[in-house]
């Protein structure tokens, strides 16, 4: 018998230090802008300063004549070089929009690229922008999504014939009858304002063309190298082996780098055309104006309950402001549809109707942003729950307890069709309440309130679907398969282990967590494993990292491939050690025969298989390289409860967050330190969404928040210590038992903060229907509530 201690997983579940950090923290990372290619041309874009206009003429002669300028390109110069890109979908009532690398005859939002200057450096390229004259014939612009629905609104895409780019409805039961009959109804019109992903590294890309090999290599700060490779191969009519997309080190993405952008297409087209490297490094102004925005929804929602607090019915009517184009590959439907498909949350809601319209406006396109739709759905649902609790004079935790899907009810089918597999909905609530000492928190709050202080406690419980497999598209009707992931694991002739994946880590620490999985499954040493990812050339098909998929899908593929490879290593060892396969196991980079002192290192086995020909019978020399594709098919639920405690200064309207607790069930925890880090960062972004972050356009479609002075992201001083509790259970639905968790913090935090604000303001009778609740909005709310209380 092998020593049971040796067989116990050692790396999964441990706070293993991130193997990428020495590289990233000592300046040895290689980001797209770090790639030095002699003779590369730098692009600066002349971008539209109009929200909506026809382009009647462009004169680039003066710019082209300026020192250091190599060429100036407009859409006309690209005719015949590249096809427009369209994000298609099988969804009914959906209109794709063509996307050109440079605006073709018309601009639809401020910041849209119109002219590209190629120069020897970025300084010269920017100097030349002033030498470009563009004649615009302004069109009426529409910035308000409600106005964009109007009969007389300007239509952005005439071929669609409407500004409603997508429309969807989910329905179960007779909503009208249930609402009419319900004794308790709460509701309102909610607004979640537009947000920017703001990764610390702006988008950047460089394309190189090797004429001798006819190889186009795009190095880009992207989350989706595989998706881009496939799209460029189509657009440029090149075989996949001639197009390589590399996402080197990437400084954050949060969804903003999970789409294909015009700049990436343009550098690729021009590099191939010119046979020279062409690069573009976006600056913060370009990032805020053009990297896909998120979270821009208006939600009219109503929740009906019985007198005992049992939820009866929910209705939601959603308008999603998706901006000027339907983004590739996710489509404009991605976020708005998720708002309604996830609205019922982790609760038993028998009757539901949710309808959504994705409406085009003259703003930057929206796309995936950490949480996608669910932060908005959770904000609305959790506000409704708290409003109902107040109406029923029930504690908000108790009302949740009564309605969360119970353990015996899994798998539970949500009214929108989503199925929750067994997950710790109730456990998360109880664990979060215990961690924060909820009863004491309420007692302390009561005392503070009696002293006239505005203290609030907010709970948010949610569930999300992660690690989505091939049964469901990550975006509705999208013709791209995001539900499988490939791992190739090899033991090479030196005894080193390499794992190749199609994912693209951009801060998640996947080089560490996947090495942990392989180490345990293979019995290898962590130090002997290298994870390669972020390169379309590594596997036959890959997409990237987004949608809380990588730990589940790549982790599952790693488990599957490592297990098979381990069998082969052990079979080879059984020959070498002259022992039965059943008596052999591997750990710490060695195979050993149970109950004996006979063992071999992986290195010795590798040499025997690859080099020392003759040590193994010919037919026993198996390939020590295994490729497996993993498909979780449905995916798995991840659940959490957040609790926030805060105080509002009634005079200045300053919000101070005092406590923050997250209890989450992300299945089997691969690395608690990395999970903590993901939760902390995502909660910080959720706090930003709740309190300060807002992309503002004026009525004419001009962007007013074009710098980080005006677009206010939280700093360390605004984020409280965050306590995390991991349930650490195994998902029954995934290989390895992992659940995805990268987005959850951003899903729960806006709702928890909103509920805490509403709770703090309860003595004034004010409710929270809008996020972010900036100091200015809070000032107005408190002023109005105080005036009403006085009877003014």
């Amino acid at each position, binding site marked *: 018998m092998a020593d049971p201690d040796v067989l116990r997983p050692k790396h999964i579940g441990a706070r293993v230090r991130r193997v990428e950090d020495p590289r990233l923290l000592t300046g040895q990372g290689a980001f797209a802008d770090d790639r030095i290619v002699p003779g590369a041309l730098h692009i600066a874009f002349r971008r539209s300063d109009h929200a909506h206009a026809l382009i009647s003429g462009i004169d680039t002669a003066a710019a082209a004549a300026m020192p250091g300028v190599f060429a100036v390109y407009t859409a006309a110069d690209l005719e015949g070089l590249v096809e427009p890109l369209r994000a298609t979908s099988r969804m009914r009532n959906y209109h794709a929009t063509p996307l050109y690398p440079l605006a073709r005859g018309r601009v639809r939002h401020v910041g849209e690229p119109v002219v590209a200057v190629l120069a020897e450096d*970025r*300084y010269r390229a*920017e*100097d030349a922008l002033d030498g470009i004259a563009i004649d615009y014939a302004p069109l009426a612009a529409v910035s308000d999504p409600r106005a964009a629905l109007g009969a007389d609104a300007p239509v952005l895409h005439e071929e669609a014939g409407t500004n409603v780019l997508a429309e969807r409805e989910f329905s179960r039961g007779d909503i009208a009858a249930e609402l009419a009959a319900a004794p308790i109804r709460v509701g309102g019109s909610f607004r979640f304002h537009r947000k920017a992903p703001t990764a610390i590294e702006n988008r950047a890309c460089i394309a190189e063309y090797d004429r001798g090999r006819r190889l186009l290599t795009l190095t880009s700060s992207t989350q989706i190298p595989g998706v881009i490779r496939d799209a460029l191969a189509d657009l440029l009519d090149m075989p996949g082996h001639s197009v390589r997309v590399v996402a080197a080190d990437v400084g954050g993405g949060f969804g903003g780098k999970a789409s294909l952008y015009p700049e990436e297409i343009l550098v690729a087209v021009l590099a191939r055309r010119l046979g020279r490297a062409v690069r573009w490094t976006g*600056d*913060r*102004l370009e990032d805020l104006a053009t990297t896909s925005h998120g979270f821009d929804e208006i939600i009219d929602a109503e929740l009906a309950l019985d007198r005992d607090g049992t939820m009866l019915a929910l209705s939601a009517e959603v308008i999603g402001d998706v901006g000027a184009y339907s983004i590739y590959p996710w489509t404009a439907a991605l976020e708005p549809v998720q708002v309604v498909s996830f609205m019922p949350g982790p609760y038993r809601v028998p009757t539901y109707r949710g309808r959504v319209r994705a409406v085009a406006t003259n703003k930057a396109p929206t796309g995936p942003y950490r949480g996608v739709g669910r932060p908005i759905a959770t904000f609305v649902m959790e506000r409704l729950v708290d409003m109902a609790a107040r109406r029923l004079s029930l504690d908000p935790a108790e009302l949740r307890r009564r309605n969360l899907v119970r353990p015996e009810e899994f798998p539970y089918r949500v009214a929108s069709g989503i199925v929750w597999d067994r997950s710790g909905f109730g456990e998360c609530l109880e664990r979060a309440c215990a961690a924060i000492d909820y009863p004491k928190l309420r007692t302390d709050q009561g005392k503070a309130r009696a002293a006239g202080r505005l203290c609030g406690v907010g709970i948010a419980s949610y569930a999300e679907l992660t690690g989505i497999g091939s049964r469901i598209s990550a975006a509705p009707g999208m013709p791209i398969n995001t539900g499988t992931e490939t791992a190739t694991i090899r033991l090479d002739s030196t005894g080193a282990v390499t794992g190749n994946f199609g994912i693209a880590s951009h801060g998640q620490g996947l080089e560490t967590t996947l090495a942990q999985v392989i180490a345990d499954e293979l019995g290898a040493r962590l130090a002997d494993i290298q994870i390669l990812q972020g390169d379309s050339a590594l596997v036959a098909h890959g997409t990237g990292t987004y949608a809380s998929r990588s730990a589940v899908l790549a982790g599952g593929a790693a488990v599957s491939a490592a297990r098979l490879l381990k069998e082969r290593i052990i079979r080879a060892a059984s020959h070498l050690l002259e022992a039965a396969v059943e008596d052999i196991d591997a750990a710490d980079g060695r195979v050993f025969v149970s109950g004996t002192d006979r063992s071999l290192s992986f290195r010795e086995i590798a040499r025997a298989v690859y080099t020392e020909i003759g040590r193994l019978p010919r037919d026993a020399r198996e390939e020590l390289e295994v490729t497996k594709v993993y498909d979780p098919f449905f995916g798995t639920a991840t659940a959490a409860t957040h609790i926030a405690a805060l105080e509002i200064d009634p*005079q*200045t*309207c*300053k919000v101070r967050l005092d406590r923050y607790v997250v209890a989450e069930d992300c299945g089997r925890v691969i690395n608690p330190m990395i999970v903590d880090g993901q939760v902390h960062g995502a909660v910080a972004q959720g706090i930003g969404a709740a309190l*300060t972050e807002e992309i*503002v356009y004026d009525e004419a479609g001009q962007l*007013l*928040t074009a710098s980080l*002075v*005006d677009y*206010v992201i*939280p*700093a360390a*001083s*605004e984020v409280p210590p965050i306590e995390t509790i991991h349930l650490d259970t195994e998902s029954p639905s995934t290989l390895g038992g992992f659940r995805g968790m990268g987005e959850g913090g951003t899903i729960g935090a806006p709702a928890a903060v909103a509920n805490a604000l509403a709770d703090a303001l309860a003595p004034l009778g004010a409710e929270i229907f809008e996020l972010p609740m*900036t*100091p*200015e909005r809070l*000032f*107005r709310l408190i*002023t109005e509530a105080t005036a009403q209380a006085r009877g003014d």
Partner: protein
Amino acid sequence: MKPAPFEYFCPDSLDEAVVLLAGRAAEAKLLAGGQSLVPLLNFRLLQPAALIDINRLSELAFLAEDRGGLRIGALTRHHALETSPAVAALFPVLSEAMAHVAHLAVRNRGTIGGSLAHADPAAELPMVATLLDAEIRTRSAAGPHTHDARDFFTGPLSTVLADDEIVTEVFLPALPPRTGSAFAEFSLRRGDFAIAAVAATVTVADGRITAARLAVAGADERPLRLDEVEASLAGQCFDADLVETAARLAGESVNPFTDLRASADYRRHLVAVLARRVLTEAHARIAVGAA
């Protein structure tokens, strides 16, 4: 986001800098800490033909006590002010304000001369200089000049400085005995520009306020002294009602603007709230200091 081309000069002495600036006055900009100038250059909102870098003028980096007051060289970094024992002893309100000036990285570079010459209406240093009746001393080809801080700032990012004038030092005159002071700021994040900031000094003798000063940033086109409020306090006995009335008057006597971050109403409200807090705190600190 790259600056337009410019010529760069890096003089070794004030005399040399004065001559260089005199020759190029209108098209040149002085580069000190660069914390406001460089972003403006990168956005191409400013496109000067020349930059005169004064960071080598070590003669302008000093702190010296003088007649109970302080002479502060124009090239003194914010961090030096923030951590100076002399500043803390003589002008604690300045130490208090410095902690609100941006972040440590910015305070390591930014200079007092640069902040005053840049004249951001929401910045702390112009407001504190106004509060403390600072003298702003300059040099140009024509010789030295002295400006009263109260007359120095003329609007957003504009001052009385002539194109060829270099701020050389700031003199803060001594505060009277039995003076307390306080500073308070509201910003969206720690270190951001003020949505409103208010600072006060209160001087008492024989149980009465002999003098009070109240200055405001972020609530008007330039840092303000609220003369009317100050007058309402002088000669009075300090109590909560007096402060309440003064605070209300402070809110009414500013003329703030509305922008993305805050409405005029909210700024006016904040000025009143912060005025109440700093007057109360400044007065409370006298008792502590006198004990």
